[in-house]
């Protein structure tokens, strides 16, 4: 069974550009989460999908971030326009029910 996959693994973009991160959850997992770890600090929650609906987007830092999960399968996280402070590692996770969450390898985003 394939795990959670994220693409790309690394992205380096200039300030002001747009970047789209993608997450493919484990097939059949209704819950999909996005997290971010900045500068080796704590792993911060961004948002939570249940199927295609946004259950909780309280962690989204501002309106430059847009997440979608069309059809309740894969999800994208777009940052537009990117700022220097957006640099970090973006993790996606999926789960079924209230059990353990399976994480992807993360996308390391560097904004220069």
């Amino acid at each position, binding site marked *: 069974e394939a795990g959670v996959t994220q693409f790309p693994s690394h992205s380096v973009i200039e300030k002001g550009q747009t970047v789209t991160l993608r997450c493919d959850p484990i097939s059949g997992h209704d819950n999909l989460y996005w997290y971010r770890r900045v500068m080796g600090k704590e792993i911060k929650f961004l948002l*939570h999908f249940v199927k295609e609906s946004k259950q*909780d987007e309280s962690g989204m830092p501002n309106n430059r971030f847009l997440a979608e999960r069309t059809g309740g399968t894969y999800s994208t996280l777009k940052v537009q326009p990117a700022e220097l402070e957006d640099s970090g590692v973006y993790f996606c996770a999926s789960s079924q029910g209230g059990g353990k969450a399976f*994480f992807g390898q993360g996308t390391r985003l560097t904004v220069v």
Partner: protein
Amino acid sequence: SQQGEEDPQALSIQEGENATMNCSYKTSINNLQWYRQNSGRGLVHLILIRSNEREKHSGRLRVTLDTSKKSSSLLITASRAADTASYFCATASPEYGNKLVFGAGTILRVKS
């Protein structure tokens, strides 16, 4: 402030020794989970302990949970160099919609 906070922030031990990491949290929880992150890689789920459980074992890992003190500990016995990683606790709390809330992590270095 963080729901989950680990201590110590960093721990350096010799191979073969035991490593103990602690986690404190602030709210009621449904479960508490421990994850490991090797440098530059994704988060790997280690163990989940439910709020009505006090202790769980998995191989060389032993997790305890004290809900009266709102704390948990992760013990790694007979550590190996390959255990070198960052370790995070994460809580699933009904007060936070059961999304996982992470602490800042403990960096463990096992010297061979």
